[in-house]
Structure formats: structure tokens, C-alpha cells
């Protein structure tokens, strides 16, 4: 679960909320106004609509470029507002609860779509949007954006959460190549340590979500997709032996100070620093595991390392011969009102044309899973490769587990799952961690 997803969890989720259904019960799913009309030819002249998201900086610029292109095509006027700042808990939630939602919001939690849908707060996709989504995306992405068999959202961007980033120079200095298996990763870490890298593997334990991502990738490989799906829905308890196996495997790295330095220090390192430590001018680390958006963190530096030459990627290693599998996450645009421009905009977002603008705007850092987007649209080969991998796996990926859990369990800084894994990072007590995780999971209502 990423930081931005945390923001979204906080803003978005609160929305389904409350006793407020009565306040705006009239806005049921009648407005299919945009269906059929293709987003072109100044058909929407003078229609203005609002979009709430959490992107700022380069990502905001890229998304704004898409809005501008849409406005130019149709004559509509879209206004994007980022709900940023870390203090915005419930901004969208309160707005929806109060009956003044934005026309479109971008959500990163698939669970939120189901919750909004069941509360009748969002609009089902028009026929045009449906056909655009099915033409351009693997079916699994459409399923994630649906609830009760109805499509509501459009995938905007995606991230590959099974990428391990490394400092190419440090690997050369140590004379090693990217490891393909878990054991090789450990061996690589030891060699890096011998070569003078103080903390070979940088763990950003200060942000608990990085730890959930570590765990999920290991669990996906040691327990397999079926158990992954069950644990995601809390259909098996956290005290299950498969969780113990994953945690014990994880401990081979987390529990070794030669690999990650002092765990007490690692638990204070925020995500951004964990990346900086690998790619700054005098690096203290050589490997950092996190998603494809690490590229954005690197390029937002003032003296960035060059992605693709200084900063490279290898897939999360196989454990005990596990087959290749990816973890992914992404954001979905959903219409909250029957605004005439909303559905046409969603349809446009699903087009390869919009995807191209989104990924190619400078500073964007976005990846798209639009399968009809040419790889050449990406500004650098690494992003292109990452996107290609995401598209190529088709439906063979699993969505971020903690992003699918209720935010009270999988999305609360320093508490519940995040906090429990932080504690585990420090003390390495498998049984205690399992019991605490199960206790916390039980105290939360699962959908």
C-alpha cells in the first residue's frame, strides 16, 4: 500500500459513510447520459466538471495534460483538484456524505468502488466506457473496477509492485549480477556488504506500507495465489501456518543486520529515504525493494540518478522455485454524478490516446496497463519495459493485498497491519506477530 493510496484510503473510503444516505438518495443510477455520444466534435461545449484526486507535482501535470486534451476535443471544462497535504482525512468522504461530491474522483482501492456502489453513490459506466475498457484492458482490470457485475471505473495508471531496484554501480563494484532467487538475493546482500556497502538492502520500515508489500510478495511466492486470495479476504486467519512460513522466510533478510543494518534503525527510515539511500551521491545501500513508482521518487530528486543506467530493476526473486507472478496496484477514475461530461471523460481516459499523453508528459512517472498503447510512448526504456511486463502478464497478477483490506486493517500508519509488521521487523517474533495480526484483523469489519 503506497502513501498515496493511504491518502486515498482516508479520503475516499470515508465516503460510503454514514447515516447520510437520505441526504442525497435521489441521485440513483439513472444518468446514463453520456452513453453512445463519442467524445469529440465540441459536443460538450460549456459543460464544466470537477475531478478530485491525490496527484501532485509531475503526476498532476500529466493528468492535467489529459484533461486539457479532452477539453480541447469536446469544449468541456474539467477542473482537477488534488486533495493533498496529508491532513485531508475524509475530504472526499465528507463531501460525499454532505451531498456535494466531485463529478469524478480517482480511487486506488478497489474495495471502495464496491462500497460506493452499494451505497448508490457512484454512476455505472456508460456503454461507451464499457466498450473502451474491454477493448483496451485485460479483463482482470475491468473486474477490479466493477461491483456486483457492473462496471463503474476506468483504470488510469498502474504500478508493478514486484520490482526490486538496485544501484548498477554498486553491483559492478561488488562484481555481482541481479539475483533470480531468494537465496541469491541473500548471497548478493552478503557480497555487497563485503564490498563495503554499509546497509546492502535498504528497508523503509518507517512507512509500514513498504513492509506489507514485502510480506505480500513473499507470501504470494511461498503460499501461492489461492491462499493469497483467501488471506486477502481474511477467509483464513493470520495464524495460518502459511503466514508463519512467509514471515520466517522474510526474517532471513529482515533479521540479518549484515543485510539491512540495525532493524531498530530501519523501522525509522521513511520510504523516500530508503530510496535515496540507494541512489544518492554517496550511497549507503545498494538494493531497495518497492514498486515501479520508485522511478518517480528517483527522478523528483534534484540530482537524479538516471533510471535505466544508474538505477535498474530486477523482478522480485523466486522463492523455492515459485513460478513468476506479479503484484500490482493502480488507480481508478469513477463518476459520482450524472454530469454530462463525466462518462465521455471516462471513455476518453480509457483510450490509448489519453494513455499516451498520461505516460509521455515529462515528469509523469505513470505506467498504463492500456494494452493498445505503444511502448514507444514511454520516455525511457525502463518505464517502457515495466509497463510491458504489466501488460504482458494479462490477468496473471494479484492486486495489492493491503489495498484490498479495510483501511482500518491494511491502511493505518503505524497501527494494525503496518504497525504489527514494524514490530515484527524489530523483534523478529513470528508467533507473536501472527497473533497480533489476527487480533487486529478480527477487530475490523470485513466486507
Amino acid at each position: 500500500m503506497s502513501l498515496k493510496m493511504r491518502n486515498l484510503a482516508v479520503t475516499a473510503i470515508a465516503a460510503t459513510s454514514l447515516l447520510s444516505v437520505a441526504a442525497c438518495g435521489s441521485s440513483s443510477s439513472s444518468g446514463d447520459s453520456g452513453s453512445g455520444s463519442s467524445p469529440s466534435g465540441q459536443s460538450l461545449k460549456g459543460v464544466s466538471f470537477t475531478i478530485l484526486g491525490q496527484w501532485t507535482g509531475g503526476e498532476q501535470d500529466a493528468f492535467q495534460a489529459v484533461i486539457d486534451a479532452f477539453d480541447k476535443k469536446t469544449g468541456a471544462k474539467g477542473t482537477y483538484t488534488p486533495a493533498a497535504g496529508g491532513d485531508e482525512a475524509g475530504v472526499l468522504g465528507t463531501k460525499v456524505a454532505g451531498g456535494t461530491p466531485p463529478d469524478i474522483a480517482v480511487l486506488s482501492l478497489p474495495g471502495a468502488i464496491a462500497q460506493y456502489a452499494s451505497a448508490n453513490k457512484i454512476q455505472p459506466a456508460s456503454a461507451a466506457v464499457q466498450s473502451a475498457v474491454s477493448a483496451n484492458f485485460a479483463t482482470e482490470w475491468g473486474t477490479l473496477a466493477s461491483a456486483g457485475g457492473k462496471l463503474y471505473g476506468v483504470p488510469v495508471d498502474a504500478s508493478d509492485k514486484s520490482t526490486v531496484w538496485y544501484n548498477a554501480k554498486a553491483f559492478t563494484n561488488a562484481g555481482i549480477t541481479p539475483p533470480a532467487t531468494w537465496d541469491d538475493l541473500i548471497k548478493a546482500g552478503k557480497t555487497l556488504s563485503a564490498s563495503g556497502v554499509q546497509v546492502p538492502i535498504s528497508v523503509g520500515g518507517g512507512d509500514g506500507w513498504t513492509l506489507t508489500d514485502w510480506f505480500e510478495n513473499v507470501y504470494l511466492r511461498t503460499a501461492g495465489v489461492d491462499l493469497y486470495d483467501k488471506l486477502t479476504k481474511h477467509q483464513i486467519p493470520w495464524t495460518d501456518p502459511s503466514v508463519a512460513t512467509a514471515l520466517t522466510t522474510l526474517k532471513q533478510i529482515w533479521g540479518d543486520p549484515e543485510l539491512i543494518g540495525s532493524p531498530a534503525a530501519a523501522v525509522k527510515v521513511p520510504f523516500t529515504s530508503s530510496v535515496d539511500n540507494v541512489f544518492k551521491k554517496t550511497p549507503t545501500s545498494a538494493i531497495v525493494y518497492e514498486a515501479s513508482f520508485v522511478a518517480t521518487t528517483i527522478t523528483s530528486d534534484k540530482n537524479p540518478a538516471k533510471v535505466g543506467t544508474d538505477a535498474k530493476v530486477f523482478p522480485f526473486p523466486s522463492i523455492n522455485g515459485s513460478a513468476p507472478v506479479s503484484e500490482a496496484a493502480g488507480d481508478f477514475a469513477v463518476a459520482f454524478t450524472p454530469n454530462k461530461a463525466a462518462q465521455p471523460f471516462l471513455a476518453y481516459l480509457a483510450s490509448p490516446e489519453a494513455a499516451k499523453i498520461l505516460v509521455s508528459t515529462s515528469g509523469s512517472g505513470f505506467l498504463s496497463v492500456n494494452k493498445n498503447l505503444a511502448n514507444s510512448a514511454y520516455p525511457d526504456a525502463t518505464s517502457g519495459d515495466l509497463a510491458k511486463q504489466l501488460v504482458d502478464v494479462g490477468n496473471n497478477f494479484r492486486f495489492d493485498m493491503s489495498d484490498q483490506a479495510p483501511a482500518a486493517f491494511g491502511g493505518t500508519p503505524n497501527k494494525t497491519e503496518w504497525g504489527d509488521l514494524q514490530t515484527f521487523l524489530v523483534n523478529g517474533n513470528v508467533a507473536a506477530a501472527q497473533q497480533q495480526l489476527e487480533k487486529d484483523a478480527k477487530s475490523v469489519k470485513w466486507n
Partner: protein
Amino acid sequence: MTVANSDIVTGTINRGFAARVVARTSGGALRIFLIVVALLWLLPTFGLLIESLRDPSQYANGGWWYAIIHPAQLTFGNYSQLLQNHTMSSGFFNTVKITVPATLLVVLIGSAAGYAFAWMEFPGRDWIFLLVVGLLVIPIQIALIPVVKLYSAMGISGSIISVIMFHVGFGLPFAIFLLRNYFAGIPRDLMEAARMDGASEGRIFFRIILPLGMPAIASLGIFQFLWVWNDLLVALVFSNSASQPLTVALASQTRQFGSSIDILAPGAFLSLIVPLAVFLGFQRFFVQGVMAGSVK
């Protein structure tokens, strides 16, 4: 006799001299103590100021104190980058449009209510006042959802007025609490004499309470001004892109996947200028208060 006399004389001189020495040195110690305190208090802000003048690429080289050794590193780059953004200027004007009315309303309404609680008699006065004090503790977060619903029923969602009203509501409990207690300290004889003279309540309020209460009113005004000026949470919930104040504009420029010190630090100093000017301007009222108290 002469001996005794001279003894007395020298005694007084000695005592006077000793007292003066003590006063002199303790005055010096006091001054040094206050200077040390002031420097300690300035230190964190000073660090932030230096940090706001450093290029972010320098951060990795060391803390802000390194820049003092190499002053050539200092640059206004962060400021100019921030000021290029057009949402900053409209945000600034929105902040003014929100803060000034929200402060004036709280001061006026709070003074009137504070006076009523301090000097008027009506049934249930103590209990109602108790309730108002109780309202002080209500956390803002609790009120967000109910008030959003209220605003959408009133049709004022997203407007500047909606932001102002929220600040007024949450500013009043402290205003009433502070002003009632301050007004209650105004000498009883003064009030009763004025009433004996047949002065109306309005006249008493404007001619006695407001002038005598000026130091308290001025400090309340400053704090209310600051709280509203620096508010982020309320504005995030109630404003929209047209009515958003500076804090929201700033926050929306911070990065999710990187450090934002190069935005927050210069932003802090840009938005510090006005409140400091207001504080310096209000100093006058403290002095006036002093005079009102001392003139006989």
C-alpha cells in the same frame, strides 16, 4: 552623636550603593537570561529560514548549519519557484478574504457575548456559560460531516462564506471564555457607577468594556487571526479550487514521494509575514491598555 549621625549617613549610603549594585548586576543577569531565551526560541525558526534558502540538492551534504559555513550556497530559488505558481497569489487573496472577516466576527460577537455573561443577569447564566466552555474541547474533526451536510442543505458548499462560518463557530467558545473572564475583572464600582448614571448597556459596552478590554481583545484577535490564517484542515474540507486559501495551495504542491522541505520552508516564511505585521500593529493596543490602566 556625630558618630551616630555619620554612622547613619554612611549606612544609608552603603545600603543605597549595595542596592544599586545588586540592581545593576541582576539587571545584567536578567538581560543575559532573556537574550539566551530569545536565541533559543529563534534557533528552530532560524534553521527553517536557512533551509528555505538552500537548494534541495544540498540537503544531502549536511544540515542547515553547513550553509552558514558556506553562505555562497544560499539562493532564492525555492522562493521564486513557489511564486511562479499562479494558485499561490489567488490563494493569498482567499486567505485574506477568509481570515479578516472570520477574525472581526469572532471578536465582535465574542465581546458581546462575553459582556453578557460577565455583567448581565439572566436565568441559567452560569449553566449556559459552562456549556460554552464545554464546547471548547470539541475536536474540529467531529464537526466536519454534520456541518458539510448543513452547508449543502443551505446551498453554500465550497464558498468562502462557508469556510468563514466554520471558523467563527469554532473560534467563539475560546473568545467568549477569554473575554468573559477578562471583562469580569473590570472593577465593579466602575460598572455600577455607569449604570447609576443611567448609561445604556450599549453605551457601557462601547465606552467602557471595549476600551478597557482592548488588551484582551487584541490578543484574542491575534490568535484567532493566526489560527484561521494557518488552518489547513477546515479549508481542505470546505473550500473548492476557486476559494482555496494559501495553505491548501501550498499543500497541493507538496510531493507524495519526496521530501517537500523546499516548498514548506519558503511557504512558511511567505505566510509568516502578514501575521507578524499584524502582531506588531496590535502592539499599539497593548500600550494603550497600559495607559488606560494607569491614568487616574
